[in-house]
C-alpha cells in the first residue's frame, strides 16, 4: 500500500511526448540528464542499468514537469520510482545514507544549535518527538517486515 507504482500507460505517452525538456532545470543544465532515456528503458524492461547512475539523483523534485503535464503526470515519477528501487537494493549516494541514518536515529536531520541560539537571544528549543517517533518506527517496521533483528533475538 505504501509503495509507489508506475503506470505504464502514462509512461508510454510520456515517452512519446517530451514537452518537459524545455522547462526541466536539470535537462536544461546538466549534460546527459534525460528522463526519457530512463523511461524508455523502464518500458523495455532494462530499468536495471540505471540503478547505479547519478542521473536518477539529478531530478531536483521541483515538480515543474508535473505542473505542465497534459496528463497530470510528470516524468519525475519515473525518477522517483528508480531511486526507490535502487534504495531497496541498498544503492544510494553516501550522503543520502547518512541523512537517512540520522533521521531514523534522531527523528531529525540536525539538532538545534544551542550556543548560537543563546547568542541570538532565542528561547530554548522545544522538545522533539524523538521518543514517540522511535516507538512508531518500530511498530511500522514490525508491520512491514516482522520483528526487527534485535527483537527476534529476544
Amino acid at each position, binding site marked *: 500500500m*505504501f509503495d509507489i507504482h508506475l503506470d505504464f500507460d502514462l509512461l508510454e505517452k510520456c515517452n512519446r511526448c517530451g514537452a518537459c525538456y524545455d522547462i526541466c532545470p536539470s535537462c536544461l543544465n546538466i549534460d546527459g540528464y534525460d528522463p526519457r532515456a530512463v523511461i524508455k528503458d523502464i518500458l523495455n524492461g532494462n530499468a536495471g542499468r540505471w540503478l547505479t547512475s547519478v542521473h536518477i539523483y*539529478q531530478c531536483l523534485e*521541483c515538480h515543474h514537469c*508535473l505542473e505542465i503535464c497534459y496528463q497530470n503526470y510528470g516524468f519525475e515519477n519515473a525518477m522517483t520510482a528508480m531511486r526507490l528501487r535502487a534504495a531497496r537494493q541498498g544503492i*544510494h549516494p553516501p550522503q*543520502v545514507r547518512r541523512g537517512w541514518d540520522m533521521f531514523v536515529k534522531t527523528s531529525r536531520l540536525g539538532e*538545534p544549535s544551542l550556543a548560537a541560539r543563546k547568542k541570538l537571544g*532565542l528561547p530554548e528549543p522545544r522538545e522533539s*518527538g524523538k521518543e514517540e517517533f522511535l516507538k*512508531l518506527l518500530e511498530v511500522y517496521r514490525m508491520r512491514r517486515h516482522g520483528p526487527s533483528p534485535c527483537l527476534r533475538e529476544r
Partner: protein
Amino acid sequence: MKEFAVFWGCTIQARFPFLEKSVRVVLKGMNLPFRDMDGFTCCPEKSLVNNIDHGLWLLTAARNISLVDKEAVDLVSPCTGCVSNLATAKGEILSNPRKEGEINSLLKEVGREFKGTSRLYHLVPFFHDEVGIQKIKQSIKRDFSGMRFAVHYGCHMMRPSHSLKNDDPLEPKKFDNLIRALGGESVEYSTKLMCCGQGLDRVDQHDRALQMARVKLRELKNTGVDAMALCCPSCFLQFDNNQHLMEKEGERFNVPVLYLTDLMGLAMGYTPQALGLDGHRVDTEPFLKKWKEISSRPSAAAAFSEGMKKEGSFI
C-alpha cells in the same frame, strides 16, 4: 486570527538560527498569535526519506500533522520544503481512505490520530492571505522605494499545486505582491522560476549544485538588482552559503540574499542586528547602505513641492 504553531524545520534550527530570529521578531512585532509546540520531528525531507521509504515518509508527516490537529491550531512554516512535504503527504492520505486507515491504525499505537483538519501554510501565502497587504503596509515605518529585488520563489512554495493550492504554480504572484507592499520593485527575469538546485548538494553533487546557482546569479549580476528576496532555508543555503563559497574562489556576483522577514523587519524599523543579518555570508552592507542613501533623499514629490514653495510666486 486563528492561533498557529510555527513549524521551524531542521535546517533553520540547525544551521540558520538567525533566520528563526528574523521570523520571530516580525511575528512578535505584528502581534500575531503564534506558538511553539513540543513534539515535532523532521517534516520529513523528501529527497532523503521519501527516496528510501515512502511509507515512513507519509507516516512521519501524518504524525506531525496530528499534533496540530489535536490542538486545533493551524501550522505555519518559514520553510518551503517542510510545508510542501507535509501538504503532499496530507493530500495523498486524504485522497485514499485505505491509506488513511492504515496510517491511523499505526498512529493509534502511539496515541495519535491524523485528521487533516488544520491548515498548513508557508509564510509567504500566510502573510499575503491571512495577515493581508493592508496590515503589512500599516506596520511599515520606512519602505523600499527605489530598491530593486529579484524574487526567488523556491519550487516548493507552490508546487505540487494539487496539494498546496496556495498560488499559481507556474506564474505565482504572492511574493511579488509582498515586495510591492513593502514599496520595493520586483524585477522580472528569465530564470525567476528556476529551481535553486540545492537538492544536488544533498546527493553528493556539490559542483553541480554550484553550477545551478551560477545560472541565476549570473543573470542577476547582469540585470542589476539590489538583493535577492527568498523565504526557504534550502534556497538560502544555495544562494547565500554557496555564493559565498564561489566568492572565495574569486567568482563575484554581489547579490545580497534577504529573507522575506529580514525585509519586513527592516521596513518595520528593526535594526539589522536585531534581525540577525550579521549571520549572512554574502555581505548585506551594500544593500543597507543604498537603502539608507535612497531613503534619506527627499522623495521626488516632496522635492517638487519644495521647489514650488521656493520659486517666486505671482501672488
